[in-house]
Structures are given as structure tokens and as C-alpha cells.
């Protein structure tokens, strides 16, 4: 998966054949984790007779339409049989109107579906969503909820017309490079979810900052031990050296800033004093509040 960031190359990339529609093709897709969880939740809540669920993806695009950020999604009821497919468009429109009131920036950027294979009506639904997302092309996100091959494969696709005529059924889905974005706040939420899956009881209790830091430090120590063991192995000749890993480690170690030791110790001392002073003052305030509270109750 090459990430081509240079705009001059973008136009020469042959992503789609001759397009009869005036749509700009998407080059890169960023997905927020809330979208993935939302899709799974919808899949778990599907009706008994459904095997697959679909919904709308909302997000923002860059001005030239080449970069899409999928920020949220909502479910759309649909019904498909051997011969026909029905999508509840009323629901889609009303949900979109409601969502627009809460977050004005988000627009329709595509749709999602679950399942390991594309539905045979995917082309038709893609056509519908392309019209909704006009003048840009619609992104199609597929999550393999059946866990084929022991993985939960997530794919981003883009429809491009093939064949002689411009029929909506003639559509080929091409893969779209995507990246998952983890804003800092969501990272903590995902960490809580990850802790819940690792804990033996199946749930994670929210812990204090200090305990969380302790866990981070433990993990950091374990990582350092693994890396040190590997480096020792390479130096001793027992492990096969890997240039990429070596360069990465070198790059990482270069990040440690070099500060003159005297300067650093002064910085350290002053900062430590600040921390202790703040802690002392806040404890003083708390003691004062408690005393005032007790006095009130006596009176």
C-alpha cells in the first residue's frame, strides 16, 4: 500500500477507467475508530432474517475531494432477497438531517456493509450513494463480521464504472488505501476497551491516572527489555540483523534531546519545586474547605 502524497502524481494515477460521470476520485481515506464499533454494534442488533447490514458513512473531505475522513456513521434499515433489494431512504434522509443539526460539518461520504463478500446489489447501492455524495465519489467500507480466516478484515473500496455503457450495475470496486486515525482522547477510550478484553472478568474498571501510568511504564520496560535482548543477540551474532529495524531503532534513540547536565539539573530542580509547591497549596486549600465545612455543621 503506497501512500502517494504528492499532488502532481495524483492525476497520473490510473485508479479508474474512463469515467462518464464528473466525479473526483478519492486517493486516501482516514477512518475514525467510532465508525468501526458502530458498524459492529449495528451488525449485532440486526433482525433475525438479515445476514448483512448497511448504513451511511459521514465525514469531511479535503477541498479537492481527494482525501476523505470518515468520522461517523449511522445505520439504515434494508432488506434484500434473491431478486430485489430495498433500502429505507426515508430513514436515511431523516437521520442525516438530525445528524446535521448536531455536527454541521459532516456530509455523506459513502456507505458501509458487513460480510465477507460484496453483496450482489452493491453496485446499485453504490450508485445511490454516489448520487448522494456528488460531486465526489462514494467510499464503500466493508467489515468482515463473519471473521473468515480468523481476522476481522476491514476494506475500503471505491466504485468505478466499467464496460461500454454507463449503467449503474456496471461497477467495479477498487481498493482504496485507508488509515485508522487515533486522536489522543479516543486512544484512551480504546485502551479501556482493550483492557476490558484482556481482563479475565471481561470488563475493565476505570483506574486512576497513577495506576494507568504504572501500566504504561511496565509495558515500556517490557518493550525495552525485548529490544535490548534483540540488539544483544544481533551483536553476538545469534540473531539475523534486519536493516529496517536497525534504522528505526537509531531514529528512535536520536529523539532523546541532548541537554547539558548542569542545565538539566537546574531545570529539573525548579520544575520539581513547582510541582511540590502546587501540591502543598492545593492540599492546604482542601484542608481549609474541610474545616470550614465542619465548622458550618457545628453552628
Amino acid at each position, binding site marked *: 500500500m503506497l*501512500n502517494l502524497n504528492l*499532488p502532481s502524481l495524483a492525476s497520473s494515477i490510473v485508479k479508474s477507467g474512463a469515467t462518464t460521470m464528473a466525479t473526483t476520485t478519492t486517493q*486516501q481515506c*482516514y477512518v475514525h*475508530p*467510532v465508525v468501526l*464499533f458502530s458498524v459492529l454494534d449495528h451488525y449485532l442488533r*440486526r433482525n433475525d432474517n438479515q445476514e448483512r447490514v448497511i448504513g451511511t458513512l459521514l465525514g*469531511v473531505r*479535503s*477541498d479537492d475531494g481527494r482525501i476523505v*475522513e470518515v468520522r*461517523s456513521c449511522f445505520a439504515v434499515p434494508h432488506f434484500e432477497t434473491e431478486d430485489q433489494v430495498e433500502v*429505507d431512504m426515508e*430513514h436515511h434522509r431523516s437521520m442525516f438531517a*438530525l445528524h446535521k*443539526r*448536531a455536527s454541521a460539518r459532516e456530509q455523506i461520504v459513502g456507505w458501509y456493509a458487513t460480510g465477507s463478500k460484496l453483496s450482489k446489489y452493491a453496485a446499485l447501492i453504490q450508485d445511490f450513494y454516489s448520487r448522494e455524495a456528488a460531486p465526489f465519489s462514494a467510499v464503500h467500507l466493508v467489515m468482515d*463480521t463473519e471473521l473468515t480466516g480468523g*481476522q476481522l478484515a476491514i476494506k475500503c473500496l471505491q466504485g468505478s464504472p466499467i464496460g461500454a455503457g454507463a449503467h449503474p450495475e456496471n461497477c467495479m470496486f477498487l481498493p482504496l488505501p485507508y488509515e*485508522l*486515525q487515533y486522536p*489522543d*482522547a*479516543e*486512544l*484512551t*477510550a*480504546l*485502551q*479501556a*476497551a482493550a483492557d*476490558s*478484553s484482556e481482563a479475565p472478568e*471481561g*470488563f475493565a*474498571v*476505570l483506574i*486512576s*491516572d*497513577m495506576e494507568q*501510568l504504572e*501500566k504504561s*511504564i511496565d509495558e*515500556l520496560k517490557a518493550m525495552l527489555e525485548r529490544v535490548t535482548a534483540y540488539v544483544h543477540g544481533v551483536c553476538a551474532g545469534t540473531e539475523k540483523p534486519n536493516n*529496517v*529495524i536497525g534504522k*528505526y531503532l537509531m531514529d528512535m534513540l536520536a*529523539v*532523546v534531546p541532548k541537554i547539558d*547536565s548542569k542545565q538539566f539539573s537546574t531545570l*529539573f530542580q525548579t*520544575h520539581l519545586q513547582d*510541582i511540590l509547591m502546587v501540591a502543598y497549596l*492545593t492540599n492546604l*486549600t482542601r484542608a481549609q*474547605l474541610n474545616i*470550614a465545612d465542619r465548622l*458550618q*455543621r457545628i453552628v
Partner: protein
Amino acid sequence: MSGETKNAKPMTTLLNEETAQLATFDVSRIPKQLLPVLDVEKTVALTKVRVDPLAVLKIVKHARESHPTSVNGQLLGLEINGVLEVTHAFPVPTQLGSEEDMTNYQIEMIQCLREVNVDSSSVGWYQSTRLGDFMGQPLLDVQASYQASPNAASSVVLIHDTTKSEQGGNLSLRAFRLSAAYLDLVKKGEFGTKDLAARGLTFANILEELPVQVEGSSLAKALVAELQWPATGNGAADQLLAQELQRPSSFNAKLRARRLADRSAVADDVADDDVAGVPGLGAEGLLPVRSVGFLGRPVAALGLEQADVSLARQLESMGELIDEHVHDANQWMYWKRGEAKVRNARAQFVERRKDQDEVPEKELDAMFRPLPEPSRLDALLNTANLSLLTKAVTQSRGPAMTKMYMAQALQQDN
């Protein structure tokens, strides 16, 4: 701060009427473990709150996007056997006109969600906060209206602190209910010193905190596992690392930008977000924020300057609250002195008139009437906010010191 919260009581009453109109269904179709949900009298008290990762992510996303304004939204879920399960959450727009508009919005949203089988009973609401001092009269009013409505007697308010989550690397999500003591006093409408002492209401027990757990479905756990260790074949790990090398990590980019700025003749301030020289990324908000090929534990922001900025704001806020606290105390003392004066005057009057006939109590009361005691509620809320702030600051000092020592350990070998 939380001036945008609106009263949502009419929504739940309207929803009750709607549910009553639904056709009665066969009770035997409900699985056994869900039968306690029909416990209408709510005899089991709430012990904890279990939140689905989806609801958490939606709350976090909404709070982060509207930072620094505080926003709120609805929680949906079920209460089973004293455990409140929150399965879904949706934001409520802040610019809604009237209360009716907001109620209608919530009803429409719940109806739409019901069509895709999302739990349609509201179990509370959430609010985001900035510095950690979320206690305010509007919050208490909204929560009181939620707890008063019969169908939502088990509602909680979830408070999420965005800045604290981002900097501490620890999800800050707390669940609160109003205590019985506070609700009693609200009903009576009096918040004098004697009333507070009688019910034992202090700044610490206006709100009761409930423990929060995060638990996801098995499929969600599979997804998290997939995110942490993406399926890699042979050499795919190398590819991931090679990509990492090419991609400017935010730290490297800042360092490079700063070095460039140092060398240039006119050293402009390099803004934190200025990832200079990354072409192909368009409008703001589309810059990749820590995009990595896999999910790792959030190492708390080791940038000490960021934490200092929010600490400075917290201390400023603390100073203001302390001023108000002192002001409230002075007001009360002033009233107390006035009351004492009136009492003294009355005693002297009785003393002087001892030789003459007794003046009836009622006349005395009419002649010497002290001012009524000012409500202590505002002072109480102020103290509560102050206590929340100080607790947050104290708790952040421990990790701050630890990180300092970590930085020192790195430097010691140089």
C-alpha cells in the same frame, strides 16, 4: 460553563405516553435474564454503570470536536439488577432554540434509532467538562428532572473530561447521581445551615459517584485485537516499520520545523500544528493525528509544557473560586452579625420591660424581625467545585513527578 443544558423532562413524559400506546406483548417471549428489566418499582438500587465502548467513543468524539465548549447528549440503554448498561449515546445540538425543539429532536432520534433495534430507553445524559469543575446549578436541575421522572428513576450523568483524558493517558469518565439528601432539600426548597446540618448534606455528598466499567461485546473485543495486532504476513512487519520511518512522526516533524526556524533569519514562532512540508494534505482537520498501523497503549503526553498550560488554567480557576468562597463566608458572617444584633436588641427590650407587664411573644417577633438566612446552596456548589478542582490538581501531581524522574533517568547516561 454548562449554561447550555436544558431541561429534558418533557421528553421522558412524552416517551412514556408513547410506550403506553404500544400493543401489549407476550411476556413469555422475554429471555429470563432480562425479566428484571420489567421491575417497574425499581426496588433494586443502582450499584454500578457498565458502558459499551461504542457509547464511550461517541461521547469522547463529541466532546473532542466541540472542545473547549462543554456539550451534552443523551444516553440509551437498560438497567438490569442494579447494573446500568449504557449501550448507545448521541449528541444533542447546542444551538437548538426552544426546549420543545430539543425534546422533539430527542424523540425523533430515539425513534429513528429504534428502527435499527437500538435500545430506546433513556438511562441518563452525558456532559463534557474542561477543567474538571462541572458542578453547577443547571447540571443539578437537569439531573433532578431526570431522576424525578418515573421511567428514568435510574438515570445517571456521565461526566467526561477531555483535557484530562488526553494528557493523563487515562480515560476520564465518571458517573453521578443526586443523593437522597439533596433531593429532599430541593423538595423543601430551603438550604439554611440548620437544614444542611440536619440532613448531613456537605459539598462532598451532593452527588453520589458510581463505579464505571467498560465492557464490550465479543465482536468488539475481536475488533480491538485486530487493531492492536493487524494481520501481518511475512515481511509485513518490515513494511510497517519502513512506513513509520518515512512518515514524519509528530515529534520529528516539530523538531525539524524548529531546527529550520532556528536557522532562518526571521525566527517565526512555529505553531504546534504546523507540520511543515507535508504536501497532499488539504484543509485543516485532515492532518493524520497519530496514524499508526496498529493500536498501542497511549503513553501519556510526556510533553510537560502542555500539562503546564492546563495546570495554569486550573490554578487561575481555583483562585477565582477561593475568592468567591471567601466572599460567601463574609456574606454569611454579615447576616449572622445582623441576626445577633436583632437578638440582643430583643433581649435588652425584654430586660427593660421586665418591671412592666409582659409583652406577648408575637409582638416581640413583629418588632424584632431578623433577615431570613441566605441560601447556602450557591456557597455549597462553589465549595464542591473547588474540591473537585483541587482533587484533580493533586491527582495530576503524582504522575507529573514520575514523568520528571523518567526524563531524568534518560538524561543520566549522557
